[in-house]
């Protein structure tokens, strides 16, 4: 089991985000320890992605605090997050479709020669080595990623996230577009990265996607945190009750559970 006696890698405290008058996230607090996978689950519109975008810098919080290694930090742009070792794999992958795989892996952080010119060969070489580890079948290094399959595109997005020595990895619905074999591959990778000491937020609307991989599970409903539970203490049905009814395992009745099915 993960050692949670030390200091959390990342803490999001009392985060609030509103769009117009709609409170997308209200006073949510979650944390993440090194070598831990926290599943962040909830139905559509529960606020999972909005919450996590405050950590990845895509959309700053209206109020609340973010701490990395116990230190309060300001993350107002994706660059800030990356500088702190926070890498994000977005649900839509956020790839520039007209650019090839190495170009996407190094987008915004291109390798250059000593004259400041793009070093495409060095980037391709690094990408080939990376893919050798992540997805050995990947061979399309010189075509725009628009022509790649969903799984291959996913590999590119993952390669981009893990190449820059991330300490905190955010994966938003990483297996939504994948077949069974590729899903298993992503699962193996998550386990491997956890072994290496990364903290991973795994976001999904479906508890079955994340249950096996998670150490803890935080459940959100209508912008609020229902609660955070140790995976070993709960069944999938109990988590489902949290997602749908907003009731913690202690509060939920057998009748409630029966009605879920």
């Amino acid at each position, binding site marked *: 089991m993960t050692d949670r006696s030390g200091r959390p890698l990342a803490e999001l405290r009392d985060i609030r985000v509103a769009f117009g008058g709609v409170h997308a996230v209200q006073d949510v607090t979650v944390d993440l320890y090194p070598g831990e996978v926290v599943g962040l689950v909830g139905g559509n519109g529960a606020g999972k992605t909005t919450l996590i975008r405050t950590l990845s810098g895509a959309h700053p919080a209206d109020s609340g605090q973010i701490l990395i290694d116990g230190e309060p930090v300001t993350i107002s742009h994706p660059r800030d997050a990356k500088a702190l070792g926070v890498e994000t794999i977005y649900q839509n992958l956020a790839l520039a479709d007209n650019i090839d795989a190495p*170009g996407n892996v190094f987008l915004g952080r291109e390798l250059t020669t000593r004259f400041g010119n793009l070093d495409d060969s060095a980037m391709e070489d690094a990408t080939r080595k990376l893919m050798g580890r992540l997805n050995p079948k990947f061979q399309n290094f010189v075509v725009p990623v628009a022509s790649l399959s969903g799984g291959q595109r996913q590999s590119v997005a993952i390669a981009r996230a893990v190449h820059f020595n991330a300490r905190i990895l955010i994966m938003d619905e990483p297996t939504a577009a994948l077949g069974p074999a590729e899903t298993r591959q992503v699962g193996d990778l998550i386990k491997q990265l956890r072994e290496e000491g990364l903290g991973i937020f795994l976001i999904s609307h479906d508890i079955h996607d994340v249950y096996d991989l998670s150490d803890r599970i935080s459940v959100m409903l209508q912008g609020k945190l229902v609660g955070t539970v140790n995976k070993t203490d709960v069944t999938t049905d109990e988590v489902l009750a949290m997602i749908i009814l907003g009731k913690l395992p202690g509060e939920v009745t057998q009748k409630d559970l029966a009605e879920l099915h």
Partner: protein
Amino acid sequence: MAETKVSAAEREPEAQPAPPGERGKRSLRELFRSAEVDTRLLGMLAALAIIWILFQIITPNHTFLTPRNMWNLSVQTAVVAIMATGMVLIIVTRNIDLSVGAVMAAVGMAMAIVQHDWLPEWIGLDHPLTWVITVAVGLVLGAAIGAFQGTIVAYVGVPSFIVTLGGFLVWRGVAWWMASGQTIAPMDTLFRKLGGGSTGTVGGTWSWILGIAACAGIVMLQFSKRRQRNRYGFRQRPMWAEVTIAVIGCGAVLLLVGFLNRYYLPPALAAQAGKAGQNISLGLAYPVLIAIGVGIVMTFIATRRRFGRSVYAIGGNPEAAELAGIKTRRTIVRTFTLMGLLVGLAAAVQIARLNAAVSSLGTGMELNVIAAAVIGGTSFAGGVGTIVGALLGALIMQSLVSGMVLLGIEAPLQDIVVGIVLVLAVTLDTIFRRRAAR
């Protein structure tokens, strides 16, 4: 039976069954791919060749492919070509600049006033630095206007169509206002060389030297690419392809130089220069060399610099570019600044060519520039377009106009033909691209 088996094995799993004859096409495409030849560029070169040959056949006395006409064509293309390279980057980021013609007028007017009214008082008439100061003023003003418009687009968030439509009106008015609509002429003698004409050329010998230097450049680029790939042990372009490209590339350059060098100074002018009865090559004109230089620098910026990579990333997926940490707004401002700079340069060439600045300078030219970029394969959907394509697009358009002038076709009909070609080019490109994506 055996043949169907082979073709089935060759297919990708999800491909449709190939009709007979498809195999030959596919292997040709694979041949090009292994040689790393851009098939779209090849298609444009083929279109250009067809246009040239067709005009050569149908023009009276077959005057299209003469050194004289090709030399004029090269000079006429230069101004639009210079600006089209900047327009590519603008359109690639899903923006547009409708103001380039009007900005050209305003900047051209300002340059004319500086060299015609101000500089003679400060440094005297015919000072050797007059042209340098004039051009510098043009570049700075053009870049400043571009940066201003780009800032409104990127930081305030007003659509570029609106901002530059406003600029289209504003700068034209400013150009008129600067001299109350008067024509300012003549230009400084040295400055006029920028516009080409019989004095604005490098001469036959230097044309050959530049042509040979270009050949050396082509071969050196190929070597440096091979060396870079060798460093990582990547696949190399096959040797036969390297040799073919080097031979065709160098051959084309030298052929063109030799051909253009056969355009001679008119006998009367040669007699004036004390060389009566001799054939004196004009050589390449300065505007053409400027356009080629701009094309090389802009290609370098677009493909080898981080700025260029950012531009294409923004065009491909603006949100992804932002999330990847690219400073997207600053990049947009830079594309407009670069565009303004090139407009300033083009304005210098244009007023030097006309030997005058008028407030109607560059009227309608924004459409030629946009058309050149689009015929050259730049997509309004963003993320797609090349500098060399835009140069070829400008050349194709000017070739059509030049040929029709030789045929004596009236201006309205010329417009109709150019308009049809524009739509046809994009239609074909759309169809081919859709087929390639399938």
